[in-house]
């Protein structure tokens, strides 16, 4: 079937504005009578706080210093659990938690005012190790257990499965905490539009959800809030959670003037979520011919101080823990844990990116121990049309992994460069 437009290399419709420099990112917008906002963030990972803003308020040119008291609606947000506070009221849970938002006539005044806010930190024992954080007696980041989520995958009989294996390989893998490092730091501008709505112009992945969260914090109906998504300078999951949206809208609501804020690169690093670092214990077994028989995995994800997308990330990690292979006996436990580290959330791949660092090395270890080459062992086990995944889902169509591997072998000669699993 051929199409007129689908399948064609149409020049991207947003391209011209971008090559000419006319594409408008939120930091490129200025308005008359505009004020500037700056965020005060926690410098301690776990502490009760007491905030005194009086000196900052007295500084000439400072229009407002917003704290938890100034949130008329609910002082919370979060993509799944509402475990973030718009401004920390009593307790900070990570370095970088927002405590106050200064609004002033100029950026310099706002910056200076940050130093005049006095925060007393009454430190609580922090917890940084996700494994220790699972202990009943460990310090609690939120009120209840630090275990946010436990996904269990059970298929077949794992003990029997391993008994029937010719070779079993075991290892523990660890992945790093990484940043999206999109090139455009967070920025935004908020104002009251002609219809009386609180308009917030930002760069976000999901404007409608931002609108809902802003409305809830402002204590107004959703229709009273309008989110305008300017050009977005990359996201990769890092613009899923709210950063400055609510702060800006609160300031516009209170001061009835446009407010702009632009994060520095450093603040961007300290404001948005990170990729979940995972600890992955893997045990994989195959029969003599290289058919996978059993896989057991324990996956622990450090979600830091807030859950963000932890449930979806560790769920996705758990479902994909087998890799694209049919394995009759599977036991996977995938657990998300709170700590006082920077919070983890969405980042390109949602847990499915971390997992192959384990399962793909396991495959090569098995191949080597069985005298197979890396491509052949995969070809024996990959999903094809009609395969059942370890969750019992039937892949009824469009499963061209065999074609993918065949193309690779044509170019890289895995099967030819190995004889009996040993590379020549």
């Amino acid at each position, binding site marked *: 079937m051929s199409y007129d437009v689908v399948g064609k290399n149409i020049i991207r419709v947003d391209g011209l504005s971008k090559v000419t*420099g006319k594409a408008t990112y939120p*930091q*490129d917008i200025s308005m008359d009578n505009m004020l500037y906002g700056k965020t005060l963030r926690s410098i301690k990972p776990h502490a009760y706080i007491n905030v005194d803003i009086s000196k900052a308020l007295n500084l000439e040119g400072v229009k407002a210093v917003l704290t938890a008291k100034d949130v008329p609606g609910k002082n919370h947000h979060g993509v799944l659990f509402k475990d973030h506070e718009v401004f920390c009221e009593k307790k900070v849970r990570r370095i970088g938690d927002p405590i106050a938002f200064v609004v002033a006539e100029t950026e310099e005044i706002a910056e200076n005012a940050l130093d005049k806010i006095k925060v007393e930190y009454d430190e609580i024992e922090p917890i940084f190790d996700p494994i220790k954080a699972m202990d009943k007696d460990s310090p609690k980041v939120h009120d209840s257990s630090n275990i946010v989520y436990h996904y269990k995958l059970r298929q077949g009989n794992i003990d029997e499965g391993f008994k029937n294996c010719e070779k079993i390989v075991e290892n523990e893998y660890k992945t790093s905490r990484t940043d999206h490092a999109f090139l455009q730091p967070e920025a935004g501008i908020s104002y009251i539009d002609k219809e009386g709505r609180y308009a917030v112009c930002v760069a976000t992945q999901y404007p409608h959800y931002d609108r809902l969260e802003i409305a809830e914090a402002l204590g107004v109906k959703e229709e009273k809030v309008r989110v305008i998504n300017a050009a977005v300078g990359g996201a990769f999951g890092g613009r899923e959670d709210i950063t400055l949206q609510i702060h800006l809208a609160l300031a516009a609501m209170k001061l009835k003037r446009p407010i702009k804020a632009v994060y520095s*690169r450093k603040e961007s690093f300290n404001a948005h979520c990170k990729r979940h670092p995972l600890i992955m214990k893997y045990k994989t077994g195959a029969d003599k011919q290289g058919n996978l028989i059993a896989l057991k995995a324990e996956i622990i994800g450090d979600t830091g101080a807030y859950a963000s997308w932890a449930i979806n990330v560790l769920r996705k990690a758990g479902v994909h823990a087998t890799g694209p292979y049919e394995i009759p006996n599977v036991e996977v436990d995938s657990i998300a844990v709170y700590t006082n580290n920077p919070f983890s959330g969405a980042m390109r791949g949602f847990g499915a990116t971390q997992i192959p660092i384990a399962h793909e090395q396991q495959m090569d270890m098995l191949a080597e121990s069985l005298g197979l080459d890396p491509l052949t062992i995969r070809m024996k086990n990959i999903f094809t049309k009609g395969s059942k995944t370890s969750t019992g889902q039937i892949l009824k169509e469009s499963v061209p992994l065999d074609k993918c591997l065949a193309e690779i072998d044509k170019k890289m000669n895995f099967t030819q460069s190995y004889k009996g699993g040993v590379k020549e």
Partner: protein
Amino acid sequence: MKEIKFNVNGKTHKLNIKEDERLVDTLRNRLGLTGVKEGCSEGECGACTVIMDGETVTSCTVLTFQAKDSEIITIEGINGENKIHPIQKAFLDEGAVQCGFCTPGMILSAKVLLDKNPEPTREEARKAISGNLCRCTGYNKIVDAIIKASKYLKREGN
């Protein structure tokens, strides 16, 4: 305060500036040239790249007084008001743009390369943009675009 004169995109500007005013702020906030992007404020990402007297500079690490009497080109001035420059066309044709935040800086780095070296190799193109970070494209289509632009420019020159 200090008065300086410089030429930006073919137009002479006389400005009173603060001693510590950064060129990126002068261009963006006072001249309204928001095609100059700021990504890191320490000269690492190259988003704020402009051409100053024929060389690329990161305008976040240049103070405006250092630009005294210089000629500056930003993305807005690369080819007058209307028509797009062959490098811009090549970036579009080769799909070298994604989020677009690095794009103005990339195009200006490409221009300085092509002004000096009209027929660069892929390696030379890679080197020329090595001070411009891009998180979206993996750079390869940008390199393609620079090679394509050199052909467009050659054709135009003939």
